């Protein structure tokens, strides 16, 4: 399997008032297609900044990130929505489901701006709902779902576009241990069955056991790979 994500000598700086904060320092990293990678670090270690840069949500200050063969430094800003829609998926700590949409509508939503017919989109969403075992809850609004169910819907939403890479930022952060464990198991199963590359950023050491590879980050630097 080839490398789906290459990070070459990447640094990320932020300006906070007069102060310049270096969140990520000279990171080098390669992630192979189909890998399940867990990036572990304490709060403020720079793991979320690294995820933002790796996923193309933010551009590195120095260095370059090549995501599925595309250098995120040279991609036009207007092209990013299409890239996100077609190549990557995101799972958030707070689930970030749209309150006014039902479970199935939330799953379908990334595809609405696409040219695919509504029928095709609905079929894909229903297939995912079956996979995450929430078919009977498809017409429920997020407020009517438990935290674990909301995160499963968020995972299905991230997968509807058949992404090459799924980025998850603290996916178990707002869940109890048992539910969090179920969520990571679901992600692991999707990683095995669908072959989607998964990059999880977390401070939770218990997720390491599911990883093909663990990357430790501290003070903005990658310590162990």
């Amino acid at each position: 399997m080839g490398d789906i994500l290459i990070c070459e000598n990447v640094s990320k700086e932020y300006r906070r008032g007069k102060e310049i904060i270096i969140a990520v320092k000279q990171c080098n990293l390669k992630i192979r297609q189909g890998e399940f990678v867990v990036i572990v670090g304490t709060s403020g270690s720079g793991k979320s900044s690294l995820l933002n840069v790796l996923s193309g949500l933010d551009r590195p200050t120095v260095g370059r990130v090549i995501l599925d063969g595309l250098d995120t430094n040279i991609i036009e800003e207007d092209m990013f929505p299409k890239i996100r829609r077609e190549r990557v998926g995101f799972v958030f700590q707070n689930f970030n489901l749209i309150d006014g949409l039902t479970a199935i509508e939330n799953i379908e939503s990334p595809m609405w701006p696409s040219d695919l017919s509504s029928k095709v989109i609905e079929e894909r969403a229903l297939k995912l709902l079956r996979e995450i075992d929430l078919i009977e809850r498809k017409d429920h609004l997020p407020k009517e779902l438990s935290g674990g169910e909301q995160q499963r819907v968020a995972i299905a939403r991230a997968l509807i576009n058949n992404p090459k890479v799924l980025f998850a930022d603290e996916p178990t952060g707002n869940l109890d241990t048992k539910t969090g464990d179920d969520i990571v198991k679901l992600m692991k199963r999707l990683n095995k069955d669908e072959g989607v590359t998964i990059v999880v950023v977390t401070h939770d050491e218990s997720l390491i056991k599911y990883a093909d590879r663990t990357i430790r980050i501290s003070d903005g630097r990658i310590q162990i790979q």
Partner: protein
Amino acid sequence: MKFRIFWKTFTMARRSGKRFLVFVIIYAFLIATTAYFMQQAWLNPNTLFTWFTVLVVISAVILSSLYGFLISNYRKREIATLRTIGWDAGSIRLLFLSELILVFVSSFIIVLEVIFHVVAVTYWANPTSPPVALESVIINPVILIITVAIIIGCQIPGMLLGYWKILKIRPMEAMRKA
């Protein structure tokens, strides 16, 4: 696909509950008062009604700007999330515009509905009165159309403010922890 977003926005706005309802009622009140004052200013030129009309139009501009500001503020995370999952600027603008249209059309329907009921009740109370004599209680259709055009014009600053604020929301904001 634009129609799909348009339609889904209607569903989302409808489900947003209080915010949607409050603005529909305020807009309905605004349309009715603008039309009423304009009609009175037309029937009685050089009276205070002309100034009332100007005042209501200024309120409409302020209100639409406030609405644009509130939508983009309340829905910051939602918009950031949509950007993260691949919605382009055009689709997000359409989402915002559709909600604005829905609020406006709903308020207009309410105003029409109220006018029809006022006419019906007035006739029921005084069946001998001819329709022309009702000018003081119903709003002339021409005035109503002019009012709609004015209120639509008043939406432009709010719409531009909303567009500007929405496009400033970066997808990274979706990653912010609550």
